[in-house]
């Protein structure tokens, strides 16, 4: 990431949770229903303190469950105001039904997720099971690798969701990112506010002079069409994302894309991954490159909608690919792996792809593990079976 630091930016070190709260302070949404769950708590606690001290005037609703958190967010966003919430794990799973409703109503709610494993047995630690379990719900899913990205994605995500009229999950890795103090650069408040702009819901419930009906019954003659319309909106997200990121680069000097290619252009051996593991992979890539190995990383930031063609483009030179998933899809191929296979199949790329599952329930992953994966790619010693890095 190039660092064009302009004068007006502040360099600080915060946890991912605090960084997203700081972004929220700048965005100053109208309503935020919250329900606590580890490891999302740093987000809502930091933001609650910000509001308690009058540094933002968001109405926080301390609801009685995550189900009500997302339900209230649907209510307030439909009412016509910018609404956010945050959760993890069991909380996200408990919201499941209403996630589909939020996206079906095309309400661009912003939800911060501190990704965590799912029970049983209970685990408070990080993995991507919760987010993967919600990947079909019609929400945008944007992953973050570092605290800086958490901050940036919160801001970019708000704009992206509202432009697309699709709700968004801005994902950070539980503990690893949410609780890790890292350096980041903050933008000026005004820059952020101008960037996200005012939220306008043309179908605001509170516009009592122009009454609207949200959530009717659709019979067999219309339901399909609504779903298709929703899917079409999803198809426009990548383009909107590109645009939002381009604009963001202008105010921040940090340019992002839906995917990030790291030494991938000429790499024959590429790891595809998401979230906080990407930084470690970059370290390994650098080391191995020094040894002359043509290895690279393809980091997925925009996981939903999945940018098939952009991924294909990035992988077009690859011979061996390892996809690293941090969640299981019981009885099936892991989610990211499966999507990459689809991308590659669709473009008839002639590659071999290995599936690696790591980090479940907070299991640590080390750079030497990643090096091991690259070695397998280099040796061609990987099979079609999923490999578990325990």
């Amino acid at each position, binding site marked *: 990431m190039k660092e064009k630091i302009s004068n007006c930016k502040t360099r600080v070190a915060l946890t991912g949770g605090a960084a997203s709260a700081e972004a929220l302070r700048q965005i100053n949404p109208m309503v935020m229903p919250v329900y606590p769950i580890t490891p999302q708590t740093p987000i809502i606690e930091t933001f609650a303190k910000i509001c308690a001290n009058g540094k933002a005037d968001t109405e926080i609703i301390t609801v009685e469950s995550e189900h009500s958190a997302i339900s209230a967010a649907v209510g307030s966003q439909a009412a016509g105001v910018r609404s956010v919430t945050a959760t993890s794990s069991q909380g996200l799973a408990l919201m499941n039904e209403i996630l589909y409703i939020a996206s079906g109503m095309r309400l661009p709610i912003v939800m911060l997720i501190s990704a965590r494993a799912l029970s049983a047995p209970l685990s408070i630690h990080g993995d991507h099971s919760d987010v993967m379990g919600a990947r079909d719900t019609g929400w945008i899913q944007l992953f973050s690798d570092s605290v800086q990205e958490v901050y940036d994605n919160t801001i970019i995500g708000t704009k992206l969701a509202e432009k697309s009229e699709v709700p968004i999950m801005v994902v950070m890795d539980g503990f690893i990112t949410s609780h890790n*103090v890292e350096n980041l650069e903050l933008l000026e408040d005004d820059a952020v506010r101008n960037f996200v702009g005012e939220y306008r819901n043309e179908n605001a419930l509170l516009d009592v002079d122009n009454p609207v009906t949200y959530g009717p019954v659709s019979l067999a003659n219309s339901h399909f069409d609504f779903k298709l319309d929703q899917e079409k909106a999803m198809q426009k997200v990548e383009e909107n994302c590109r645009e939002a990121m381009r604009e963001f680069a202008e105010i921040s000097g940090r340019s992002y894309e839906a995917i990030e290619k790291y030494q991938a252009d000429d790499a024959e051996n590429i790891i595809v991954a998401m979230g906080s593991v990407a930084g470690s992979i970059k370290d390994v890539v650098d*080391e191995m490159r020094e040894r002359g190995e043509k290895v690279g990383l393809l980091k997925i930031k925009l996981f939903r909608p999945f940018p098939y063609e952009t991924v294909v483009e990035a992988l077009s030179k690859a011979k061996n690919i390892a996809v690293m998933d941090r969640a299981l899809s019981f009885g099936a191929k892991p989610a990211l792996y499966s999507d990459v296979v689809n991308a590659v199949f669709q473009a008839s790329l002639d590659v071999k792809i290995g599936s690696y599952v790591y980090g479940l329930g907070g299991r640590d*992953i080390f750079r030497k593990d990643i090096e091991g994966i690259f070695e397998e790619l280099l040796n061609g010693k990987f099979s079609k079976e999923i490999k578990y890095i325990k």
Partner: protein
Amino acid sequence: MKFNKKTFEVIIFARAGQGGKSLAESLAQAAVSEGKYVQAFSVYGPQRSGAPTKAFVKISDETIRNHEPIIDPDVVVVLDDVLMESEDVGKNITENESVIVNTKKPEEEIRKKIKNFRGNIKSIDANGIALDTIGMIQPNGVILGKLIAVTEIVKLESVKEQFRKIFEKKIGEELTQKNVLAIERGYDAL
């Protein structure tokens, strides 16, 4: 492969409630104030007060991208010598590296608790000094002072300043001042 060690890495062994986490954060913020890049994080789990925990600090001149826990620290801090019974605090500490222990016991005795240890032991009665300066058994400030005296990874001034910034609001001016004194005492202790 030994990943390039441009990063200075600290592991802090403590018991929940002893302030291992604030120690890590103060150190990290001090480094940030000097223009460095950092990471500071802990091992999380359901913690009953008194349970053993670990905190980590990484400091570097470049962005730290990897998110591994630290396995090969440059220095180790032990906030309670009892922890040495259950934790391998000397792991990967080599000849020129140190383990800083809050203890009343003599260094030789401490050294014996670590198997095959080749590094240095720096012991300090942080509890005693803390009791003296703050009036409570709160060893983290003292040992933070000691840590920077041993490693010189950040300046004493930066630490004091950052400590004030972080804690003045939380614990009040007076207690902060006492803690800063504790840091100084730790720094100056032999």
